[in-house]
């Protein structure tokens, strides 16, 4: 549904987005990750037809953004960064305006408004001026605007920014539900959001894509992925560390906490032997040593480790290669 090919945007001498290519199909929710200024917003603005690209192309539902911008815009719902609104308008007035520009009139318009007001829980503030609303309501009003024509493609620039945890949860649920029938791209800083709502994640750094895969695959790239967290009672930290470190499948052993008699260590597998069996091997080793094992836990890896290692200035070029 969304096809982005070698998309490039330069502002003067600075290249904000550099040869970005990806595709998003119906039923996919793509999370767009990256540090501030990485080019997330610029990419989204080019997809929605707000910014003309310097080079490359964007195709949405088979229409080229450069050649048929109106056809593309008709099919996209867009929530811009920081959810801009006309402050003096009422919520209903604003949504009506959006509906009319989307070509909805009369009964159709009424139905559409009813649907988005319900979806975004705006019924209590319909006749309030936008600038008297709290940030959460403002954000949801702008989101409602993006949904009013039930678009096939939804693009949201930080849809949960500034919302409280409950509202964040609601928006995430909404995204996941809508993602079954639409193609969705949203950007975020919050990594747990990617796990909660995305089917796929792209990490972008300094204008270039450094990772494009499922959240689970990304987590697997984390150094900690597959490591075993072992809690034992009895031996000293040094003994545990030495005994486990000598195992052939163990790369290294890190002491997490040492509060005798309880010791917590994290055991990293050799990369080449990353298997589920590793946990069993560590557990076996502990039993052989006759330690009292309190807990064994296999770590999934953490997205923020991956995020940091991919977008850190010094390692980013390697990661991209």
């Amino acid at each position: 549904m969304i096809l982005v090919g070698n998309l490039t945007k330069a502002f003067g001498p600075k290249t904000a987005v550099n040869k970005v290519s990806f595709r998003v199909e119906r039923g996919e929710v793509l999370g767009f990750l990256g540090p501030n200024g990485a080019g997330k917003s610029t990419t989204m603005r080019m997809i929605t037809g707000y910014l003309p690209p310097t080079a490359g192309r964007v195709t949405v539902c088979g229409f080229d953004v450069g050649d048929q911008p109106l056809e593309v815009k008709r099919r996209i719902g867009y929530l811009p960064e920081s959810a801009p609104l006309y402050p003096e308008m009422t919520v209903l007035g604003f949504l009506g305006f959006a509906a009319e520009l989307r070509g909805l009139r009369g009964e159709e318009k009424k139905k559409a408004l009813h649907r988005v007001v319900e979806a975004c829980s705006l019924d209590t503030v319909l006749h309030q001026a936008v600038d008297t609303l709290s940030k959460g309501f403002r954000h949801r009003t702008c989101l409602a605007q993006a949904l009013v024509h039930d678009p096939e493609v939804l693009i949201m620039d930080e849809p949960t920014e500034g919302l409280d945890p409950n509202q964040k949860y609601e928006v995430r649920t909404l995204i996941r539900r809508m993602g079954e029938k639409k193609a969705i791209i949203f950007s975020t800083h919050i990594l747990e959001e990617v796990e909660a709502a995305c089917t796929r994640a792209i990490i972008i750094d300094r204008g270039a894509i450094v990772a494009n895969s499922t959240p689970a695959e990304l987590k697997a790239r984390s150094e900690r992925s597959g490591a075993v967290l072992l809690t034992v009672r009895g031996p000293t930290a040094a003994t545990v560390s030495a005994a486990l470190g000598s195992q052939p499948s163990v790369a290294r052993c890190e002491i997490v906490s040492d509060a005798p008699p309880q010791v917590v260590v994290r055991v990293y597998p050799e990369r080449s032997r990353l298997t589920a069996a590793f946990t069993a091997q560590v557990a076996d080793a502990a039993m052989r040593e006759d330690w009292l094992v309190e807990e064994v836990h296999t770590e999934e890896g953490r997205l923020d480790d991956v995020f940091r290692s991919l977008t850190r200035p010094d390692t980013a070029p390697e990661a991209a290669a």
Partner: protein
Amino acid sequence: MSAWPNIWTIAKRELRGYFDSPVAYVFIVIYLLLAGFFTFTFGAFFDRGEASLGAFFMWMPWLFLFLVPAVGMRLWSEERRSGTIELLLTFPVTAWQAILGKFLASWLFIAIALALTFPIWVTVNWLGNPDNGVIFAGYVGSLLLAGAYLAVSCMTSALTRNQVVSFILAVVICLGLVMAGFTPVTDLLARWAAAWFVDGVAAFSVLSHFDGFLKGVLDSRDVVFFASVIGYALFVTGVVLRGHRAG
């Protein structure tokens, strides 16, 4: 889908925006007060002893010079400052529809303010027997003049996020349009420049083209002049808006 519904939707929103904020009421009150003040004091409305609105219309180029940019200054600068421009231009509308819609809304607003000067028209009709054709021409001329100023304000407001800067730029450019044909200026020019040059400069002045309307003459050349100023300024607005986005 044709363009007109989009233009009208945008114009409606913009027009309501004026009345939802104090801008509309402050503008209308000040405009009516100043128009009355100039007409009856400097214009010596009663002393003229004639049933016409000449004293009223002759101040329009100067009165509008400061008031119209105040109406137009927010058109695009406010959209850019608040980021709503991103919303507006990602709706399925073309930039031209948005520019035209916003311009029409502000023009319509000025038309409403102008229409509210009707008591002065009622007054002359009550006191005497004016030529209502001339008065009609005066209103048409004033509206075209306001349109030209507004289009210039539209252009300057696209140039900057700052409404004050937009206002000042618009006043300066409109002042230039007025001064080009202002008698003291043309006299000064005539001292050293050739007649064709002076006439050429004066031809760009709103004053020379507004005069005809005051005399009750609806000259197509004057109408074309104002229409071209509006068209040109709106065209530049489009170019400026595209320029911002092209980076």
